[in-house]
């Protein structure tokens, strides 16, 4: 059995990743002609303005429904819609606007990024840097701050993620701690010193809004303000987790080829709107400059070099489940997805793991 993984960002795995060259490594990229890539990378305001108008209108509409039907069972469908828009689709808006690819106009990216960060209880400064690290060192143990399911997998924790409870329990106290001016050693490992005070200021704004919301709830003697601000992070998170877990779960770690550690899954149009096409996740990691609305075109262009996408979320979870069960006994086991004959093969030096023990 291999050595237990140490997921600390300031521990033994971190040192090893730096020493072996896994940290900040050169990653595999499918060859795409410059002309085609330049065209795919082009920024547009139109698609994101359209989607954001729909998103905000649906949020306000469903919020109005919650207020109107508060106290009756008719509120439930409005809570369902509002929760997903607030607690799940905010993640993809946070993500795309954080990359600066959603809109062509910079301030539009920044405004939506800050709104979405608030909805997610994420410190916008800290998480901008953690996500940069996630792209530098995708699923490199000891380096990547955004590994959702560690090995061996904690299945109870993974199941609870769908309720948002664990994220809520982590995110809110983290914001309060940061608002008091304290960043952890791990946060300091990826947020540069010159940016750390900005993280504290951002946390103070978030906490101030939550304090005001709680005060309003007390004054009104009603849960309604909290149901609209804060609690959707619990009851609306399930879609974000359902789609987001599939990005990397069960696949390789400590490799430098996104075809091995990321997953593309075909999804229905509603989930793709909520998720802003992040189901094309191999493509996104390989070429993060390509905006969400161009990812389907990028997929068509490079799919000859990528593993076959999962045809549905259901298919992907059915594929992942036995892998997780094996990882409980043998944490080095992972799902190595087959490449089509048209693809360039995986490089051997980082990617060969003896999985014979998993069969025992």
């Amino acid at each position, binding site marked *: 059995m291999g050595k237990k993984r140490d997921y600390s960002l300031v521990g033994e795995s971190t040192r090893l990743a730096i020493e072996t060259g896994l940290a*900040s490594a050169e990653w595999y990229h499918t060859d795409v002609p410059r002309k085609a*890539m*330049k065209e795919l*990378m*082009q*920024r547009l305001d139109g698609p994101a303005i359209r989607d954001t108008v729909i998103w905000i209108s649906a949020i306000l509409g469903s919020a109005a429904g919650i207020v109107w039907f508060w106290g009756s069972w008719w509120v439930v469908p409005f809570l369902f819609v509002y929760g997903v828009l607030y607690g799940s689709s905010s993640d993809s808006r946070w993500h795309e606007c954080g*990359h*600066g*690819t959603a809109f*062509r106009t910079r301030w539009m990216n920044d405004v939506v990024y800050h709104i979405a960060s608030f909805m997610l209880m994420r410190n916008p*400064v800290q998480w*901008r*840097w953690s996500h*940069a690290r996630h*792209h*530098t060192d995708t699923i490199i143990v000891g380096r990547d701050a955004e590994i959702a399911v560690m090995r061996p997998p904690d299945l109870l924790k993974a199941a609870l993620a769908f309720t948002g409870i664990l994220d809520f329990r982590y995110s809110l106290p983290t914001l309060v701690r940061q608002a008091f001016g304290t960043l952890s050693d791990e946060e300091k490992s990826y947020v*540069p010193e*010159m*940016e750390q005070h900005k993280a504290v200021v951002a946390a103070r704004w978030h906490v101030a809004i939550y304090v005001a919301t709680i005060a309003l709830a007390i004054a009104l003697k009603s849960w309604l303000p909290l149901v609209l601000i804060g609690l959707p992070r619990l009851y609306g998170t399930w879609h974000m987790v359902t789609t987001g877990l599939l990005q990397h779960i069960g696949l390789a770690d400590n490799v430098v080829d996104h075809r091995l550690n990321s997953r593309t899954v075909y999804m229905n149009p509603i989930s793709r709107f909520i998720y802003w096409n992040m189901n094309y996740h191999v493509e996104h990691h390989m*070429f*993060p*400059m390509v905006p969400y609305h161009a990812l389907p075109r990028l997929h068509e262009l490079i799919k000859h070099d990528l593993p076959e996408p999962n045809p549905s979320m259901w298919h992907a979870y059915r594929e992942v489940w036995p892998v997780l069960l094996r990882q409980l006994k043998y944490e080095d086991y992972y799902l190595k997805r087959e490449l089509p004959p048209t693809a360039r093969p995986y490089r051997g030096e980082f990617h060969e793991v003896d999985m014979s023990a998993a069969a025992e």
Partner: protein
Amino acid sequence: MADWVEACAVDDIEEEDVIRFDHGGRTFAVYRSPDDEFFATDGYCTHEKAHLADGLVMDDIIECPKHNGRFNYKTGQAKGAPVCVNLATYPVKVEAGKVMIQI
């Protein structure tokens, strides 16, 4: 004293684009702006070791292909997270259809 080195032909770079130029063990990025001027900077992003020549030129901005960090390629100024350190720039001149940079 810095030397003038031929980086490429004028026609090697499209308008509002960038190419990579390696010289003396170093790597540079050579830009052609939308108003048909030429500029040169260090080739690697100051945040992580990514070739800026794989990035996107928009007006006077080069965006890094790895983390979307933005620089003004005319001045080298870093335009915000995740890039905090400015980019070195180099004098450029065009002679007889060749782009020359002083390094």
